[in-house]
């Protein structure tokens, strides 16, 4: 029933390794987003997408790439993971609501980079 799912839910990676976080939504929303949540910073936008084939930089894109191969799937890629990327990552999908875009979040992925 969950409309936005993420995998893996927990991940331990080594510095310099490649990490791919996956997100799937069954809401048929055009927009998808990746955020990270850190103490003292709240949630911050990394990348977002308007639809299949589109990726846009958010507020903190450095060190991250994104891929939107289909309406349903949006991946966040860390080519060379660093300890500073240890965080909880949330994916969201969004659709037009009353005068704006309401977003719905996945359960989060806890990433630890050693």
């Amino acid at each position, binding site marked *: 029933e969950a409309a936005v799912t993420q995998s893996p839910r927990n991940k331990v990676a080594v510095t310099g390794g490649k990490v791919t976080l996956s997100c799937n939504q069954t809401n048929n929303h055009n927009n998808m987003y990746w955020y990270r949540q850190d103490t003292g910073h*709240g949630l911050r936008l990394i990348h*977002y997408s308007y639809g299949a084939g589109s990726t846009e930089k958010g507020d903190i894109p450095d060190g991250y790439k994104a891929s939107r191969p289909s309406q349903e799937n949006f991946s966040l890629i860390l080519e060379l993971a660093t300890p500073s990327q240890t965080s909880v990552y949330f994916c969201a999908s969004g659709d037009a609501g*009353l*005068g704006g875009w309401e977003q719905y979040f996945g359960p989060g992925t806890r990433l630890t980079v050693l």
Partner: protein
Amino acid sequence: GDQVKQSPSALSLQEGTNSALRCNFSIATTTVQWFLQNPRGSLMNLFYLVPGTKENGRLKSTFNSKESYSTLHIRDAQLEDSGTYFCAAESTGNTRKLIFGLGTTLQVQP
């Protein structure tokens, strides 16, 4: 966190009491969302607001765009209301991104 300021940062309530959380915005925004992050970490949608007021059970939220603030009122607080409440402003323009406050952590005591 500077563009969306939440207060208080932490709050402890006795079961059955009422309280209000507040968000002040220093950016132009057309809509506001309120979320509850439960102890497991999931973000649950509470309200999606254009200027005006919405109510859902024991929760009521108001967004005043002219004075750039939003409030979330909790009536008859229950233990399951515990968690961190986030407000988020939708930025104007094409990105449709949310700018989050730092949250209010609520602990409801029996």
